[in-house]
């Protein structure tokens, strides 16, 4: 394995600026690594030729003195972002072969910043899942192995499982993720990397295959906090093509990493200690609090009383929006068509064949909760509870600057676990969903290993559009944690 793939984005950026190696060399190293680790199933499509072309162009730009913030950095793009002339599937059969004639705003901004695209990363179908087991293009394997049972294949988390696995396995320097209920943070935690879901509205949703429009948000996944800050700086910004995009300037997130958190108040929500939360998670959380205290911040116990209702709220709101967002996959204009005897017959056959079981299930639940006679009891009720959940955070942020919680209730689990009952699987997102419902920024960073040698993540939640404080606190925790473990073979 090449030394070049071991670098962080910031290190590679600085070394390329000094002329130590070129974007072509860095890209080639990643193309080789990507090919060598196909067994992980992280990529749905590799685009080595395109990457080489982009790397060449990048080196020319650098020579011309036009280097961007991510000049020559090879990245993986979650296959939920539409990429011009490159197959975009959302990991669904229904979009097999679909080549968008447009580039999503976020992936376009990354290209504009000089980055190189290595390929399209695997995910749960339509980003619906927490295990990356629902992709039509195969499961993704977590590069980490349990010391207790090295033969057991672990899930990378989801839905951005391909992104997390690729970054952890060093086959992308960074990756885009999207997060609707935890899809950046939970896989980041499972794979021992860092990822941030920014504030809703920070990154444009234009060109990102929609799952639940009021929740979906793109964000970076990378090896450390600084790399996430650099990437988010390039991804964020107001987009007039997205009516929900916030018309706000993008701060210099990297500059927020001052290391100084003295006097900050850190909220510790008491509701995030459900029965059965593992001792190891508890321990790493306590450890995180200690690190922050040592750095001069003050932990404050807070209450987020509607936390337990976040999951049921989410599982009404998200499927409802999804049932409507996914109606456009009908076999008429793009993607899969299964011929039928009539228009309706074609729709039904196409959608039955094109969607996997989790997607079908969520479409049906979403259809039901919006249907006549049930809207008030389910959808309208959930939207009201959503406001109560958002208000809980609003109130908490009157007294604290940032909130610290575990990212997920467990470390990565085996591919054969948790699959029988959808509701059990959903419990993975119990700590990330409230943040999504409130639209707040949430970052997960690796804080330690459990007894089996698997990474555990902690989550930092900030005020709306205050990613800077989240990054600042995360930078301090990262230094304190000194997390240097890597999966086998890295």
């Amino acid at each position, binding site marked *: 394995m090449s030394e070049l793939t071991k670098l962080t984005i910031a290190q590679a950026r600085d070394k390329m600026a000094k002329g130590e190696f070129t974007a072509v060399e860095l890209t080639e190293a990643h193309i080789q690594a990507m090919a060598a680790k196909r067994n992980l199933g992280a990529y749905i499509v590799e685009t080595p030729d395109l990457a080489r072309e982009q790397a060449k162009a990048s080196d020319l730009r650098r020579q011309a003195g036009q280097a961007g913030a991510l000049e020559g950095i090879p990245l993986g793009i979650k296959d939920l*972002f*539409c990429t011009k002339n490159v197959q*975009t599937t*959302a990991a669904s059969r229904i*979009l097999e072969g*679909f080549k*968008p*004639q*447009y580039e*999503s705003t976020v992936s376009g901004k990354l290209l504009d910043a000089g980055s190189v695209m290595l390929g399209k990363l695997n995910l749960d179908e339509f980003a619906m899942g927490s295990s990356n087991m629902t992709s039509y293009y195969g499961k993704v394997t977590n590069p980490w192995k349990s010391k207790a049972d090295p033969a057991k294949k672990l899930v990378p988390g989801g839905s951005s499982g391909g992104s997390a696995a690729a970054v952890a396995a060093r086959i992308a320097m960074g990756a885009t993720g999207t997060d609707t209920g935890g899809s950046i943070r939970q896989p980041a935690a499972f794979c021992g990397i860092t990822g941030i879901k920014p504030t809703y509205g920070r990154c444009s*949703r*234009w*060109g*990102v*295959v*929609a799952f*639940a*429009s*009021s929740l979906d948000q793109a964000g970076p996944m990378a090896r450390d906090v600084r790399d996430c800050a650099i990437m988010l700086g390039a991804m964020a910004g107001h987009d*007039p*093509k*997205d*009516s*929900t995009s916030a018309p706000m300037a993008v701060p210099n997130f990297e500059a927020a990493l001052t290391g100084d958190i003295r006097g900050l108040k850190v909220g510790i929500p008491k509701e995030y200690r459900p029965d059965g939360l593992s001792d190891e998670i508890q321990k790493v959380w306590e450890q995180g609090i200690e690190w922050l205290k040592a750095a001069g911040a003050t932990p404050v116990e807070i209450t987020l009383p509607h936390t337990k209702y976040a999951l049921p709220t989410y599982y009404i709101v998200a499927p*409802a*929006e999804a*049932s*409507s967002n*996914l*109606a*456009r996959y*009908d076999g*008429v*204009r*793009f993607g899969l068509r299964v011929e039928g005897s009539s*228009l*309706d017959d074609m*729709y039904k056959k196409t959608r039955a064949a094109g969607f996997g079981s989790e997607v079908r299930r969520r479409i049906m639940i979403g*259809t039901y909760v*919006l*249907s*006549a006679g049930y*809207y008030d009891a389910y*959808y309208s009720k959930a939207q009201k509870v959503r406001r109560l959940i958002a208000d809980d955070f609003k109130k908490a942020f009157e007294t604290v600057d940032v909130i610290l919680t575990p990212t997920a209730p467990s470390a990565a689990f085996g591919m054969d676990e948790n699959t029988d009952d959808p509701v059990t699987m959903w419990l993975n997102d119990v700590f990330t969903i409230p943040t999504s419902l409130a639209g707040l920024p949430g970052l997960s960073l690796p804080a330690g290993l459990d007894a089996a040698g698997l990474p555990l993540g902690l989550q930092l939640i900030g005020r709306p559009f205050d990613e800077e404080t989240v990054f600042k606190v995360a930078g301090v925790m990262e230094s304190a944690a000194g997390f240097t473990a890597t999966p086998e073979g890295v």
Partner: protein
Amino acid sequence: MIIQGDTGDWEIVIGLEVHAQVISNAKLFSGAATAFGAEPNDQVSFVDAGFPGMLPVINEKCVEQAVRTGLGLKAQINLTSVFARKNYFYADLPQGYQISQYDMPIVGEGTLLIDLPDGSTRAIGIERLHLEQDAGKSIHDMHPSKSYIDLNRSGVALMEIVSKPDMRSPEEAGAYLTKLRTILRYLGTCDGNMQEGSMRCDANVSVRPVGSTELRTRCEIKNVNSIRFVQQAIEYEARRHIDVYENGGEIKQETRLFDSVKGETRSMRSKEHAHDYRYFPDPDLLPLVVSQDLVDSIKATLPELPDEKKARFMAEYGLNAYDAGVMVAEKEAAEFFEGVAKGRDGKTAANWVMGDFFATMNSDAKYTWTNPPVSAENLGRMIDLIKDGTISTRLAKDVFIFMVESGKDPATIVEEKGLKQVTDTGAIEKAIDEVFAANPDKVAEVKAGKDKLMGWFVGQVMKATQGKANPGMLNELIAKKFKE
């Protein structure tokens, strides 16, 4: 209108939903053009075609047009309104939902005065007006086993204008549509062209025994493309309901299609299964907020609307209600009329505009309001020539024809053609003498009491003067001559 059935008298209850295409350059939620008649699928953005990841951004002009229309209908403007998704699957609905407004439309209740043939008016309630996207177009007759889809219309802004069930006859429904179209055209918010589909009408029809106040099950007749067909469809549908009821049957709530060839309505097969539109607020769009300032500034630019114009024409120009109604039915006609009538006798102006002018206008498709057969200035000047005695009303008819042919102003025509009225007593008397001299027998008959022949003499003298004799003077002089 009362329909006499076998069991008693019935009345019709009609509510109309009009889809009016908003006049704008670009679509409601995308930057694609709205123009009519482009090549298939060439005025389509990826938003209009429902591609993955595409998002709507609203066109401010369409919002302003909706507010403008609301003000024109004297309706409540809702400063905050919400876009909702109406979910259903159809071949020409690419997103699988239509972005519309549901429980919070941009315009609430208003009123529209319909003009009835006897010159009276009746107020019809407007329930609401909301903005929504149009669907694409399905073409069923180009292939034996396939329907073709053209998305050029997909995403074009429509105003759905819903009336209250206040109409009681096909005639009232026709008057409502005519008046609504007039108002939309005055406002410049919709061109009202039913043939091209920029104004479409769905009619909700039910019947009930006269005297009853219940609302019985209604049927919706979809997309009827002319006012005459709407009236036919309503009448057919009402009689169908009465037949069903009088034979002990029940009406099923359903969507029906009007077949203009057979003059019948029939159940729509594609709408057979019950709909559940699952409306919910569109999460891609935030609440639409318009400021009171914007509403006020739109209000300040509203034109004089037909009802006000009609009242003013009656007061200012002395027109009767019917004539005034005809004159304001088209904005351009009203403007033309005012161009002619300003500073002149209103009734004379109205007679000329509604008579010779309209007749010529309608005689040839080449005439339009931007290319009228004669200009308002010239028609006005011609009326001036009548008034000052230069030409008679009779001669004016010829002058009018020459104006249409040449486009010249009437004074020039009178000059060139020598059409000036003869008011010289001597000249007229000379002509009378000649006619008398040539027809002594007829002179004798008149003098013997056959008064009817007087007219014949007037005609002969007029002929002899090539029609230029002042008719009043001529009559007077002939009468005098006979008395001599």
